């Protein structure tokens, strides 16, 4: 179980605030009435990507409660069935969080693959559950394009998070403020 305390409480809470603020910013940009024509290609789901990046790199910055809050808000604002995408994302981020210990010593490609698999799990699981509950769905091609673009955008998100907010993987042997090995 990830119970890192690599940073001081102040940093942890500021990073949690940053996560929430970035998510709200992404929602705001998505809601801007700039795209009123139907698209044939769906861009990456940035909030999902942000959540996975944090969950794999610094899980202590995003407790499940905050992820759930952000995702439910996104569900409500983006006209998705409320709760389902949130539940799947929380589930996936918990799985990734449990794996973050093992992944951090492995090369980046493995981390990327793990994130991509989690994405597949969330988006395909979402479709399957919607199909079980007979909810009308988006065209499969559009969902596939979103899956691919999101998976491809993962390195960019990692880079952005590392450069802008210092969300790096914890190096083996690094110690926290209390001198504990993490």
């Amino acid at each position: 179980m990830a119970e890192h305390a690599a940073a001081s409480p102040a940093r942890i809470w500021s990073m949690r605030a940053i996560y929430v603020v970035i998510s709200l910013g992404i929602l705001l940009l998505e809601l801007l009435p700039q795209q009123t024509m139907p698209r044939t290609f769906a861009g990456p789901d940035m909030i999902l990507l942000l959540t996975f990046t944090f969950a794999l790199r610094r899980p202590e910055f995003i407790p499940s409660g905050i992820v759930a809050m952000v995702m439910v808000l996104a569900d409500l604002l983006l006209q998705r069935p409320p709760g389902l995408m949130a539940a799947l994302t929380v589930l996936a981020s918990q799985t990734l969080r449990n794996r973050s210990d093992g992944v951090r010593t492995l090369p980046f490609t493995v981390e990327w693959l793990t994130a991509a698999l989690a994405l597949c799990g969330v988006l395909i699981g979402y479709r399957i559950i919607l199909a079980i509950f007979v909810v009308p769905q988006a065209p499969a091609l559009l969902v596939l394009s979103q899956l691919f673009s999101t998976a491809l955008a993962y390195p960019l998100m990692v880079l952005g998070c590392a450069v802008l907010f210092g969300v790096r993987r914890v190096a083996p042997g690094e110690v926290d403020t209390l001198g504990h090995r993490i």
Partner: protein
Amino acid sequence: MAQDRRQEADYLTPLRRLLGSVLILALFGLFLFWRIDSPRVERFRAQVVDQVVPSFDWAMAPVDGTLNILRDFQSYTRIHKQNQELRRELQQMKAWKEAALQLEQENARLLDLNKVRLDPRLTHVTGVVMADSGSPFRQSLLLNVGARDGIVDGWATMDGIGLVGRISGVGSKTARVLLLTDSSSRLPVTIQPSGQRALIEGDNSAAPPIEFLEAPELVRPGDRIISSGDGGVFPAGLLVGRVAQDPGGRLRVRLAADFERLEYLRVLRHLGTETIQDPGTLIEPRLNGEEKTGVDLSTREGVDG
């Protein structure tokens, strides 16, 4: 002095896991609740949107403005070409304007001759588009008019030329417009001049297909499509667009409204279509007791119903 942090946290792990599962179950329960009692949750959603989106407005307006300016800047690069195009179009428009003026006069004359009465109750509320659906899978818009402006679910929305969609979800300050291109949008239409009835089914593409057409051979690309008013939800006679044929031979609508730039929309007040319920009874001369039968029908037209 380093010691393993994980040992300390061991007693926390089961608790954390339990809380996580409870959270996931609660979220899934929300989804189930939505599936069972959708109207209640959708009302809640409308309230949340009503609270959240207008409070974002201070941030959205400048960003939106900046993006629009950038987009306009892009068009400066091909300004010469555009200018020539505009001149050419202007030439054509002048010819059209002449034709339109003549037709308008003729139309007014004919309407006068026929004593046609246009529906005086068809008025509109104009709203500004605040936000779009935000996801590539839904096609909807958020207007800044809502229940306090008298907006009611189901009213038609136009952009001044053609139909855009219908109101679906009203908050007190905002209302959501489900666009004709959304995959859950269905609109009964009439195709002129053949008078064929059909249904326009949104499918998340820019040109929705025309379905349930009885005699497709009577319909040609270029025919006008207007709303038929079947079902009583929409007023009849609103322009939707023109028929077009895609490479696969399927008939689609080229929408008249400019979906590229939807900024101001009109919501048409629709106070219900009056239906004629009386099948019409026998018309007979009014007979008073003392009057003789055999009245001359030219003076007396008793229309009792």
